[in-house]
């Protein structure tokens, strides 16, 4: 979910191609929000990866009474099973990030391929693929996710696939726009006239150019994927054997945390999710701004806006 904002005065998209790392470094330097976002995300990733090692208590270890109050030993209190909340947050972030990244990977592959094919080959292929994309967009994603998750059964794998298969449209559109602009560039036309095959052109010329925007789109999709996972878990459709941040919130909700006064069972996990989403949004948005703000899609066109549906996120407006 990003808003393709054109900041007057930022880099225009017609600059000659720069090295990718140079560009990214530029972004980080010039956009403080991206830096903050990256730092937050980095901290979460480190905590999540190291969770098995640095978590203060066992994940299933009951260390106190149900909904124990926060104390020095347990700064965030205990949940409905007497388990330390800090431990839960670390492990929960782990699963949430895994789902987020995995689902995004799926959607990146699908979306990238569709966008690439559509933008590069144009014509019939483009029309057909864009039609399919449009139809996917028109169907509200979260209700569909709920139905599919309910039918297929709650397991981590299913959730990842379900989310991934419904989130690729944003990426596809962005990639397509970028590919179409790259395709017209002089050096690509030259390579063509020299007889280079499509595959070669795609791999050597197009892909490197679209990689940054693809990454930006991907980062934004991660935020959406994380949100979708918490939504599904909250509605009881998450994997019951895995603790994700969404599941922690759901547990608290089902076991009357609020009316028991155990706000610590709800506020921290949700805040963690919000931070994750925020950091990914900041990074992605900054990258998009810097990389190519003037995509062919005019920012005043309704189709350029990405709306945030109430429950799902990141679907293009139309």
């Amino acid at each position, binding site marked *: 979910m990003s*808003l393709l*904002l*054109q*900041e*007057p005065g930022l880099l225009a998209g017609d600059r000659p191609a720069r090295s990718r790392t140079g560009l990214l470094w530029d972004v980080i330097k010039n956009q403080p929000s991206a830096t903050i976002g990256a730092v937050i995300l980095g901290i979460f990733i480190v905590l999540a990866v190291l969770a098995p090692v640095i978590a203060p208590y066992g994940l299933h270890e009951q260390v106190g009474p149900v909904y124990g109050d926060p104390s020095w030993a347990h700064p965030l209190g205990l949940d409905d099973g007497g388990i330390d909340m800090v431990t839960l947050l670390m492990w929960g972030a782990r699963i949430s990030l895994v789902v987020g990244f995995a689902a995004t990977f799926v959607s990146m592959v699908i979306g990238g391929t569709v966008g690439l094919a559509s933008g590069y080959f144009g014509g019939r292929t483009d029309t057909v693929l864009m039609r399919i994309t*449009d*139809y996917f967009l*028109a*169907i*509200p994603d*979260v*209700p*569909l996710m*709920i*139905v*599919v998750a*309910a*039918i297929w*059964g709650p397991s981590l794998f299913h959730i990842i696939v379900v989310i991934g298969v419904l989130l690729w449209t944003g990426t596809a559109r962005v990639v397509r726009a970028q590919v179409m602009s790259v395709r017209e560039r002089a050096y690509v036309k030259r390579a063509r006239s020299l007889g280079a095959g499509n595959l070669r052109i795609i791999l050597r010329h197009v892909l490197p150019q679209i990689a940054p925007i693809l990454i930006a789109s991907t980062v934004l999709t991660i*935020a959406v994927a994380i*949100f979708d996972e*918490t*939504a599904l878990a*909250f*509605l*009881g459709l998450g994997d019951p054997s895995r603790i994700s941040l969404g599941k922690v*919130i759901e547990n608290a*909700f089902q076991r009357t945390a*609020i009316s028991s006064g155990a*706000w610590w069972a*709800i*506020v921290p*996990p*949700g805040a963690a*999710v*919000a*931070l994750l*989403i*925020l950091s990914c*949004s*900041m990074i992605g948005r900054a990258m998009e701004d810097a990389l190519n703000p003037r995509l062919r899609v005019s*920012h*005043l*066109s*309704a189709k350029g*806006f990405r*709306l*945030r*549906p*109430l*429950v*799902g996120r990141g*679907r293009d*407006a*139309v």
Partner: protein
Amino acid sequence: MRGADYVIKRVAFAVITVFIALVLNFALFRLAPGSAVTNLSRVPHATPETKHAIAKQFGLDKSKGEQFVIYLKQLARGNLGISFENSQPVSKNLRTALSNTLPMVGLGTLFAIVFGTLTGVIAAWRRGTTTEHVTIATALGFYAMPTHWLALMLVIIFAGVFPSGGMVDDFLIDPTWFQHVKDVLYHMTLPASTLALVLYGEYTLIVRSAMLETLGEDYILTARAKGLKPRAIVRKHALRNALLPITTLIAISLGYIVAGSILVETVFSWPGIGRAVYQAVLQRDYPMLQGAFLVLVLSVVFFNLVADLLYFKLDPRIAE
């Protein structure tokens, strides 16, 4: 004529989308593990004949193709089937649910639009100042919060001040119209506020960018040089320009709002279509689920169509 062409194309697109959704809808449920027949026939001493009779009653014994054709035929007649759960017409269940959802969701969106526009204008106007940064940061902050978590937070914060669930106080016997409206609004405050808070950020950012775009134009510079007050500029030019994306944004969000009410209604026990969807999923109530899903898709497609046509009216160049 190009205009008519465009309209026809968009309508056709809408119709096809609905059809695809119907097929998808139907296919998904029939492939489900755990069939409704089992659930319905879990009665004591249920003989195979009993189960067969129940299957027949709900048409579950025919081939998938036949079932689908029957489904389409009934849809054409406005018959969405009978809910498995309470044996009542799905359309009746949904109508009530939808009429409960719309006011709540409408109010929330209204708040979001108004508040979002205001903050967007402020942010654009006060470009570069702390006000702008704070406004944007807050907008982004709320935007990033998971809807259901924010709902729970509001419940925690306002416990005792606002009711934490339900749409009305059902024990209010024979209230006057005024009392009833007051009661509903009182219950609607928290859910609508949740929606407003998570939505407004988007409007802020869009309004801001639209205004910045306009404010950077030359003719604005001219107007200022001519001595026009900033406020007049904002009102006469920038805001008007922003109207286009805002209008279409509204039309489109209305479509998604109905779909997105699921989380809010679950937290607040709001008897609307979101909660109906969720319960239908839990009980494998196929007809209810198909009906609810259809309603949601229709609303999205309809509002997208409205957005397309509206946009075309405001800026005919889009037809190219």
